[in-house]
């Protein structure tokens, strides 16, 4: 088992220096999600205008994998429309299944490919992306 596949420098950088961590006073969509088996939790806020994610922030508690994944996810979706965000989320699912996919939009995400070799940790990496999917569903239902 190669631990360095899991804990790459870029992951630890997102963990120690999280991007988009915080709260909006007026987020348009808030999604609270937790992982009941381990206690990780995330509160994701999306500012969506005209079908475009103008901004995203999150707060939460969790391991380096779940929190770095949230940091990367929020960076990746900013400025994209909901369809593109959804497409990123499904590409992330493919990455967790061990498929060779690329993230030209935000290459840091590819550092999480090593999680695939640690089955017990996949749910950590997908927490933020599951929150995103819920958020997109919620936004689409409203419109």
């Amino acid at each position, binding site marked *: 088992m190669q631990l360095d596949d899991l804990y790459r420098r870029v992951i*630890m950088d997102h963990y120690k220096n999280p991007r988009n961590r915080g709260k909006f006073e007026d987020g348009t969509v808030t999604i609270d999600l937790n992982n009941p088996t381990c206690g990780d939790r995330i509160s994701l806020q999306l500012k969506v205008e005209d079908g475009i994610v103008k901004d995203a922030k999150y707060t939460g508690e969790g391991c380096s994998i779940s929190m770095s994944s949230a940091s990367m996810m929020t960076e990746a979706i900013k400025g994209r429309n909901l369809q593109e965000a959804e497409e990123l989320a499904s590409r992330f699912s493919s990455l967790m299944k061990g498929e060779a996919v690329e993230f030209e939009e935000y290459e840091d995400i590819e550092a999480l490919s090593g999680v695939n070799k640690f089955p017990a*940790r996949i749910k950590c990496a997908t927490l933020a992306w599951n929150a995103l999917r819920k958020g997109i569903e919620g936004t689409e239902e409203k419109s």
Partner: protein
Amino acid sequence: MNPSIREQFPILHQEINGHPLVYLDNAATSQKPRAVIEAVKHYYEWENSNVHRGVHTLGSRATDAYEGAREKVARFINAKSMEEIIFTRGTTTALNLVASSYARSVCGPGDEIVLTEMEHHSNLIPWQQAALAVGATLKYIPLQPDGTITLEDVENTISPRTKVVAIAYVSNVMGVVHPVKEIAAIAHRNGAVISIDGAQSTPHMKVDVQDLDCDFYALSGHKMCAPTGIGALYGKKALLNKMEPVEFGGEMINDVGLYESNWKELPWKFEGGTPIIAGAVGLGAAIDFLQDIGMDNIEQHESRLAAYAMNRLAEIEGFQLYGPRIREVGLITFNLGDVHPHDLATVLDAQGVAIRAGHHCCQPLMRWLQVSSTARASFYLYNTEEDVDRLISALIQTKEYFGDAT
């Protein structure tokens, strides 16, 4: 502890991620000795049949094996008779039976069920549900900073309105041994019964339900060398006789009519459906195995190991302990600096060391501790000082790893 004990657990002799396995997740489930695995195999190869109904020879063999296991459980915890032992799927099912059958029938609006905040979800939610159903009130005995409780607080929490006191003998997170015998006396003085969650005590110490004078006592086989899916509920005969079954079907009936039916005598009225026969046989074999070694020896071995581990762990910078410094049982819950317990458990696993990370089915306790999760190392009779040394060096490497990675 005799090193040959370790030899009797086949699973321990393998490599995990290129390192010899060090299994320190015994509070979640224990490993199984060859004697138990063979007993289950022997049952299926020579005795398997349904119980209590076959006229044929295998039917008698299976019934003898199943009821023989019940006798062993009764003797192991010193119940007065085998009628007081009901086989269940484990502690969870046993506690649910008490909460669903006993608590719901004796509690009404304004009556109280007394617990602690450190109960495992399986000794909390069944009572919560019972209280919601009948309008009873849940009351919690306050915790001291180290996770212990005082008898003074027990006295102050239990009142004449209390019908049930539900508490674990040993906490699965804080490693505390509660004074259940004294708590039982206080409960009885107030006209309440005491139901003890014995999941973490039964595998590790001598238990005498008559000496404790407890009314109910639940245990799980899989934490004490037996297979998963078997456990037992002890209940005082007079109480069990008054209780209604919660599962209805085959095996548990006396006479069935089209509109009404009645039930078999104890303990079978609570065992609807084909029981967990092979599991019970495995539990009987596990009890024989543990008694051959001696529960006093097991208890001493684990408390010595815990003391050794505690001394060494305290030397690690950033080691944060939850629960009292002195341990009677081999269970240590902790955090290490800023390293998240999941990351810790993954790095330890890469070195072949298996520990638990998470909330340990104790979300209210995690909130009380003001943490989202913790790491836990728990020992059993086959663990050694060498295992503790491996844990320590893996923890030191984890610190270095996360230090370097930043």
